[in-house]
């Protein structure tokens, strides 16, 4: 035997011993709790703590957020536009004039509360003017008071679209400032505006003499403008505005401030208490934890494993996005039932997205044909393909139940089309509708963003509509280019996939965007003058219950005309660590917060 053989073996043995020694060093937290993730569903062996919160919430501790993303999409208050991000920011550092209510009940959650303002706004002039009075004692993280000028300046940044990008543009859409011939605003934002241009903005957003009341003068009546101001109207101190770089370190107005923010895999955002925030000025937030830590760039499978195990610091963690489909059976018996081992820690509920197939009304002009498409569609197979029952419930319109009072059942799949339509489709009835249309069964092209799941979905659509005699040719489009194709009237075909999430819990952010040219997301290419007039009337209606009824009626009208074929109301499944609880949730358990379809960040605390 060659000496090198035994030397090799000795070396390997030393390596193994060294590895074991290293694993014992550094205080591995993973060894301190019994493993739970491998327990069979419902097993009682070493489950994580699921006892409901029975003690009053206390301040203290650190809450962790685990996310696969490398960073937040945008942190700048005029650029942040992702629901989960907005929910987190508004709970921690980003106050706005108004905010929503923490409640697992969706209609309650969608009720506005005053935040920076003393109330939820006062409309005058038929809701063309809105005034908000700032509370006493509201300040930025450096202790300087938040004034009307700061709110006005923050909103003005939206107009600098060549610097402040990707954010909500409601300020541009609603404020009474003239437009240029090309449709852009005559006010280019605070960085480039001449004195005359700035005067245009200063006329649309005015401050009272004492600097406490900000008034917005709108170009049209907007009955829910007090909802609009939750999005992109947070105050920014002009002296601290660094433009493009403000996205890295915005100034806090809330109970926490950003201590550090590094992006990329392994990056973190640490939020610590803002010593200049006063509870007296903030009836909205209780700010229970002392600290928040967001960990970026963690593999999604690893996040699920950590949340299931809930050991060490992960007991005080939440996953930022939903669970992976392959782990759902470990936690849920069905989309409505959490297994006992995870009671209080898990939730399965609607997110904010409604999925649908848009139908180009200029190419599929006959309503009976559009109805036939809907009737023939095998929605059951589409749902199975997308992930099964956990993926979502069957949609009956584009307004979703968790939006609150604007939702009412449309009866689309029960009585509206003349008879109940099964989830698997009714090709025979579809053929009857085609016959009633007076036209031959059409040949259509289906546009969709390509992925393996979408390819299978396209095959289901081809097959199910084919049973009714409708010939469908799938047109897969690279995902990144999908919208640039389907928004082009020259390139879009007869129908395709769509999805939409309301910007705030009012159907004014659903019906107008999807069904009017002005709204900006009208994939069906609809431009119906009578419908547009009804939409305008609903937008101007200041009596909320009356407005809700108007939206419900408009939703029914879109379904009667089948301008889109609704498919699913999306659902999400989230987990939180065993060491956390909520104030408003059932037995202190986790719930999905309706306004953003998110975790209820402002309602969380570390269990004593």
């Amino acid at each position: 035997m060659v000496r090198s053989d035994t030397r090799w073996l000795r070396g390997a043995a030393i390596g193994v011993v060294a590895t074991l020694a290293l694993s014992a060093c550094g205080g591995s937290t993973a060894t301190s709790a019994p493993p739970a993730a491998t327990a069979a569903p419902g097993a009682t062996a070493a489950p994580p703590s699921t006892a409901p919160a029975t003690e009053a919430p206390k301040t203290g501790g650190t809450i962790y957020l685990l996310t696969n993303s490398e960073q937040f999409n945008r942190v700048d208050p005029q650029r942040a536009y992702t629901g989960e991000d907005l929910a987190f920011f508004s709970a921690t550092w980003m106050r706005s004039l108004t905010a929503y209510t923490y409640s697992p009940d969706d209609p309650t959650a969608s009720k506005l509360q005053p935040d920076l303002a003393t109330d939820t706004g006062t409309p005058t002039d038929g809701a063309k003017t809105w005034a908000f009075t700032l509370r006493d004692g509201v300040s930025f993280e450096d202790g300087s008071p938040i004034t009307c000028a700061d709110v006005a300046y923050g909103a003005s940044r939206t107009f600098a679209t060549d610097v402040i990008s990707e954010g909500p543009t409601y300020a541009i859409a609603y404020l009474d400032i003239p437009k240029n011939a090309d449709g852009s605003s005559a006010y280019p934002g605070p960085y480039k505006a001449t004195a005359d241009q700035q005067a245009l903005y200063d006329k649309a957003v005015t401050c009272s003499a004492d600097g406490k009341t900000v008034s917005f003068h709108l170009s049209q009546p907007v009955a829910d403008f007090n909802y609009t101001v939750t999005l992109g109207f947070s105050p920014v101190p002009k002296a601290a505005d660094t433009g493009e770089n403000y996205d890295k370190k915005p100034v806090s107005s809330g109970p926490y401030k950003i201590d550090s923010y590094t992006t990329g895999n392994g990056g973190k955002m640490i939020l610590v208490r803002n010593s200049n925030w006063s509870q007296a000025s903030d009836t909205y937030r209780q700010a229970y934890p002392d600290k928040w830590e967001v960990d970026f760039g963690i593999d999604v499978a690893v996040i699920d494993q950590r949340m299931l195990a809930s050991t060490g610091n992960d007991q005080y963690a939440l996953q930022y996005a939903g669970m992976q489909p392959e782990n759902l059976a470990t936690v849920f018996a069905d989309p409505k039932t959490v297994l006992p081992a995870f009671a209080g820690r898990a939730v399965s509920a609607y997110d904010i997205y409604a999925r649908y197939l848009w139908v180009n009304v200029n190419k599929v002009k006959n309503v009976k044909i559009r109805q036939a498409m809907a009737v023939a569609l095998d929605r059951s197979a589409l749902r199975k393909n997308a992930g099964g029952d956990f993926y979502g419930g069957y949609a009956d319109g584009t307004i979703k139940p968790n939006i609150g009072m604007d939702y009412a059942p449309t009866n689309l799949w029960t009585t509206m089309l003349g008879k109940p339509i099964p989830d698997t489709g009714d090709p025979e009835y579809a053929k009857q509708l085609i016959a009633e249309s007076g036209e031959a069964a059409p040949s259509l092209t289906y546009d969709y963003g390509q992925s393996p799941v979408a390819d299978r979905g396209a095959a289901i659509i081809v097959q199910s509509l084919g049973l009714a005699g409708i010939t469908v040719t799938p047109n897969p489009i690279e995902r990144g280019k999908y919208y640039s194709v389907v928004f082009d009237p020259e390139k879009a075909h007869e129908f395709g996939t769509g999805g939409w999430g309301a910007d705030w819990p009012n159907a004014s952010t659903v019906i107008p965007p999807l069904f009017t040219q002005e709204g900006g997301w009208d994939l069906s290419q609809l431009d119906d003058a009578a419908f547009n007039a009804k939409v305008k009337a609903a937008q101007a209606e200041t009596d909320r219950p009356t407005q809700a009824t108007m939206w419900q009626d408009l939703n029914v009208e879109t379904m009667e005309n089948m301008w889109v074929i609704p498919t699913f109301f999306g659902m999400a499944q989230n987990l939180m660590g065993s060491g956390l609880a909520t104030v408003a949730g059932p037995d202190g358990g986790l719930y999905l917060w309706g306004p953003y379809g998110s975790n209820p960040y402002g309602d969380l605390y570390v269990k004593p």
Partner: protein
Amino acid sequence: MAGYLVRRVLGMLVLLFLLTTTVFFLFNILPGDPARLTCGKACSPTIIEANRHRLGLDEPVLTQYGKFVAGIFVGRTFSPDSPEPIVCSAPCLGYSFKRGEQVLPLIMRSAPVTFYLAIGAFVIWLVVGISLGIYAALRRGRWQDRLIMTISLVGYSLPSFFIGLLLVFFVIVKWGLLPFPSYVSPFENPVQFTQTMILPWMVLAALNAAFYMRLTRNQVLETLGDDYVRTARAKGLPERTVIVHHALRAGLTPIVTAAGLDLAYLLGGAIITENIFSLPGLGALAVNSITDSDLPLIAGITLLTASLIIFANLIVDLLYAVIDPRVRLA
């Protein structure tokens, strides 16, 4: 030798220039509109044009190219309309508007992670692969040889994500032998660094060691049968000297070629491994930049990776002359 080096370095520079030009124009002629892709949810035509101006894409392509090249030598400024324009010092490879950072610092921050990952795994797989390959060759046909070849076949067949997730599940979650990976610099906390890197090293080493076991075994077997090896044994040289200095050395050329290219490729980022273990390396950065349509960053990483391959080729060519005296660099 000096003349050879000078010629090769000049050739490298020419190649890098051509590469830079090709990458730049390639990304500019790709279908798709970056201004539309990155303008967010509220994308009216005027918003898209404003975003195009923000990204500097509203200028003629040649002007953009000129600024890109100038930026490498003298730096450039982005977002001139912002109250605080962004100054990108030379060598400036561009600015990632998606991440709010200059491309070169982003890459340089990720590069050490990938470097440590690649080098650590490289050392392990070379040591394990070559030593087991030699051992298998010396035990040809016997159970040790068969066992090693079976192990190499299994290691070669299993995808990295499978090995990685298995290790995470058993070593970290189930047995709790190591904490969840959380990368720190080895200078900041060497113990945490090693705890984080052990499993990724093992994943990469398992895959590559399998290949090197087979390659080494085949090379050694080939040379063991040669006359000069018989002569060396007949001269009474120790077996270790025969194996290492004669048999292995003669068979090193393809091993060196493969090792050099493998290492260069790995320095561009082990995408799957970095993602599974949440390592903030170049591979993870590359994948995320593609998902985000972050073209400046994609271009920067492409340039870096291609440059590494070009450089690695030079090193490998130089090593040939060291290993094999018959090779003369001319």
